[in-house]
């Protein structure tokens, strides 16, 4: 039995039922048995989660007279000015020509150099659905549509909670547990704390843009801590409380990883690519740095999670949204440049996610929670300069409109994620394990990468 198959059988049985120590023991044995890593190349996925719900109908905007008129009529005072749009030149067949606002010019450049693609009208779905099915109450819809944390969960799970509470990247990590045999750092690394996406049977590693802090009084690199550490290690074993045990796991995990990551980062090459000084830029700069020390960390596969908040533009949208898009665009461009500098542009793929698009209609100075929205995928492996999936009609009460411009998705967030996971190295049968609803869609994966 190959090591990976052993792991799969464990996964199928539910590794949670096994005690952690037994699993760790099995893994060690299997580590010893494994001849080589599953993959010899390096690949990383970087998720930028736009918390709050990006109003992506102001990110991709019709450029031509008639379609722009219709857009402007629906969006009223929230419409992006036509004269500021940068046309997207593409061979993709579209119902209407599209552009991005000029404050997203870095994204237009990435698009035109085939480094970036858009995926249109993506959202959580249980199965393909239509407006008439919804109106006749025969549609099978995800629960709690339009709620922030529920749609975040749906996006990050990649399914309708059929396989437990974790996320698709967590399940990918469980399946690919053998890809980083030399590493004590989990495949899933978060710059935004705990999240559903990366939750699997193995803990994710949650660091910050400042890197990995050392434990001042428990740092084994200093002699003066030696006694304290040995006393502490004896002391903390003496608690059988379940929550205390969970805390101890986090604590001990952080202690061992801080050493490895910190030593790696100290030796990291200096990148010439510069980032601005704000949370998104800082996070992506740290991701770039972590990728640059992949070999020191012994890692062939990594998935990063970066959170970028502030997109819940119920009010002041005209002030807030352009700033967010502008910062997102420049951060993505800088990150792409950093990957090029590292010679990894083919091996690192960055993608956006956001719990929902927003209503086409205005509430006066903002928009409310919607459903489907557009996303961006960036990297050398991406079939860039194209748009994938269907562009919805932007007229109210169209077949795409759930009501008040909440757009019914035509591509499932699972199809979007599965496409990325396939590129990352999952086989078709593994995709089915990770995305149990995938077979309900005619085109399980898309061709954007």
């Amino acid at each position, binding site marked *: 039995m190959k090591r990976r198959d052993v792991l799969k059988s464990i996964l199928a049985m539910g590794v*949670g039922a096994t005690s952690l120590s037994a699993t760790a023991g099995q893994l060690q044995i299997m580590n010893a048995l494994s001849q080589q890593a599953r993959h010899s190349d390096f690949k990383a996925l970087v998720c930028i989660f736009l918390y709050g719900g990006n109003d992506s109908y102001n990110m991709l905007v019709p450029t031509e007279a008639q379609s722009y008129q219709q857009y402007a009529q629906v969006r009223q005072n929230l419409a992006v000015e036509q004269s500021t749009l940068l046309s997207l030149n593409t061979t993709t067949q579209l119902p209407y020509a599209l552009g991005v606002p000029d404050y997203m010019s870095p994204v237009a450049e990435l698009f035109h150099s085939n480094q970036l693609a858009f995926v249109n009208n993506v959202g959580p779905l249980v199965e393909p659905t239509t407006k008439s099915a919804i109106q006749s109450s025969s549609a099978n819809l995800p629960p709690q549509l339009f709620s922030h*944390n529920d749609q975040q969960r749906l996006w990050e799970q990649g399914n309708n909670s059929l396989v437990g509470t974790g996320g698709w990247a967590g399940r990918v990590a469980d399946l690919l547990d053998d890809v980083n045999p030399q590493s004590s750092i989990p495949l899933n690394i978060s710059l935004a704390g705990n999240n559903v996406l990366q939750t699997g*049977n193995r803990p994710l590693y949650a660091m910050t843009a400042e890197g990995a802090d050392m434990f001042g009084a428990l740092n084994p690199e200093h002699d003066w801590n030696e006694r304290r550490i040995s006393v502490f290690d004896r002391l903390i074993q003496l608690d059988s409380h379940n929550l205390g045990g969970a805390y101890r796991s*986090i604590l001990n995990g952080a202690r061992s990883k801080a050493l490895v990551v910190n030593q790696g980062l100290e030796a990291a090459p200096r990148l010439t690519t510069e980032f601005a000084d704000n949370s998104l830029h800082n996070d992506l700069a740290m991701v770039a740095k972590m990728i640059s020390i992949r070999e020191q960390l012994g890692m062939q596969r990594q998935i990063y999670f970066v959170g970028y908040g502030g997109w819940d533009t119920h009010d002041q949208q005209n002030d807030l949204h352009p700033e967010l898009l502008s910062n997102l665009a420049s951060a993505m461009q800088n990150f792409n440049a950093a990957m090029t500098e590292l010679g990894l542009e083919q091996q690192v793929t960055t993608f956006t996610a956001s719990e929902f698009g927003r209503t086409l209609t205005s509430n006066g100075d903002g928009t409310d929670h919607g459903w489907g929205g557009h996303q961006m995928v960036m990297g050398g492996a991406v079939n860039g300069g194209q748009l994938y999936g269907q562009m919805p009609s932007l007229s109210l009460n169209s077949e795409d409109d759930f009501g008040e411009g909440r757009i019914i998705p035509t591509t499932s967030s699972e199809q979007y994620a599965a496409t990325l996971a396939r590129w990352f190295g999952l086989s078709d049968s593994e995709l089915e394990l990770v995305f149990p609803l995938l077979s309900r869609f005619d085109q399980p994966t898309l061709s954007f990468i």
Partner: protein
Amino acid sequence: MFKSVLLTILLSTLVACGGSDPSTPENSNDDRVVDSGNNDSDSGDDNADSTGIPMTALDAARLLNQATYGATLSEIEDITGQTREQWIDAQLALPASYHLPLIEPFSEREEFWRNYRVAAWFNRALYADDQLRQRVAFALSEIFVVSEFNGVLFDSPMAVTHYYDLLVEHAFSDYRTLLEAVTLSPAMGVYLSMLGNEKPDLERNIRPDENYAREVMQLFSIGLVELNLDGSVKLDSENQPIPTYGQDEIKGFAHVFTGWHFNGTAENTWYYWWDNMDLFEPMSAVQAFHDENEKQLFPGVLLPAEQTAELNLEQALDALANHSNVPAFISKQLIQKLVTSNPSPDYVQRISQVFEDNGSGERGNLGDVVRAILTDEEAVEGHINAPQSFGKIREPILKATHMWRAFEMHTDGEIIDMGWPEYFFNQAPLASPSVFNFYRPDYSPPTLKNETGLLAPELQIVTDAAVTRTTNFLAWFGLWRAFTGDFSDLEEDDRQSMWIDVSEYVALAESSPSEMIAALNLVLTANTLSEEAMLILEEEYQAMTWAEDKDKVANLIFLIMASPQYAVQR
């Protein structure tokens, strides 16, 4: 006086911890670890834990950890011998300590920033007499979330503090009153954009803002799915949860919440909000901007056309407050924030019943709900009956308040200058990243969930980075900032920072290190440390012959407070 009572307390603790025969080798039975901490409360009196019976020192320590910003030796001494009810009733009767007066003196400064607001919060947490009210207000601030991370509020610590004071004011009032105060607070109005929300303009496709309508239901009152009184989810005939509302209800409430703006706004000043900006007084209504059509809320709740904004609001809030979900939805979260992450359904139900009717026919009396939570048999005896699962992960920021209360913090700084507590704790008062709070009440790390099914909400913010920094806080502000004797003996520059005074414990250690350790165990962990753990600590204390006593004590404080034993309040 203090010392003698203390010694009595400690003596009983020691005896109960097996101090009578310290040479007996420890067995490896896991349960023993917890049991040894519990038996002492029962020693000589099997009913010592029942409510209505005078509290032992251990009972007192446990109550103080559940209901205040952290137990101290002197408070344990003060309330030992009282019943839980006596202490709670005395606390309920105390006047409220507000935060705004503490920051007002600084408000005209050029550099008036959030650190004054955070300092006021620490000040009240450490020193206010009305500890229970403050502690409940903090819990409410994580349910009725307003965050300064908002364009307007970030620039106005006064407005954010004023909102906090509303929670302090209404911590023991009735839920309906609290809900209205929260709803009309200008800080909330700004945060969830009810302020300035207008009636529809069909010609321009403009409809009311749904933000407050959605979150007041999902987070502040009824939640997403129908609940039983015991907090469990109701299921339909196909075993599916039953949503409490859909988009139609959201629309109905969104129309209710139109027409409100800064206090004193009139029809002709509606769009000149900067002239009306009042971040303290409740929002007031301008009927011209209020939707006057009829509004369908829940099934059977129809608000007729032509009503005033005020009447519509009143009836809509009544509908929310009277919804059958509210008692369990709010009660369970309060239990989780104060006592245990995994209350039994019976416990939730008992509290929900008090929420429904406090015995005097009042619904939602929060003071009575809090009393019921803290005097419930599960709060009193959970650690005995479910030693491996009862309790909760301490909120990281409450480790700081506990340390500074237990080892009386000293500073010559003008304020308690902890400008960015989230650096250490991943949380700070009224500074959540979103209205969904720092952590969700149903969070559990995957391994814990898979193996035990238990929830540990606070662990959502205990990340690799956060556990490192919280532990570093305990080192930087505890282990390496401890003093004894006269604070003014420290260098002037040093005195600007925050220090812990360990004099009391050094004095105890002089007569008996084991008594000092027993005192730490009582105050910090409510006697959770096992006999073996105490011996390890005593060995370490004795072995550090080269170190000053204060540093030896601080070392033990660090070891205990950084441990998983301490991480769980039980």
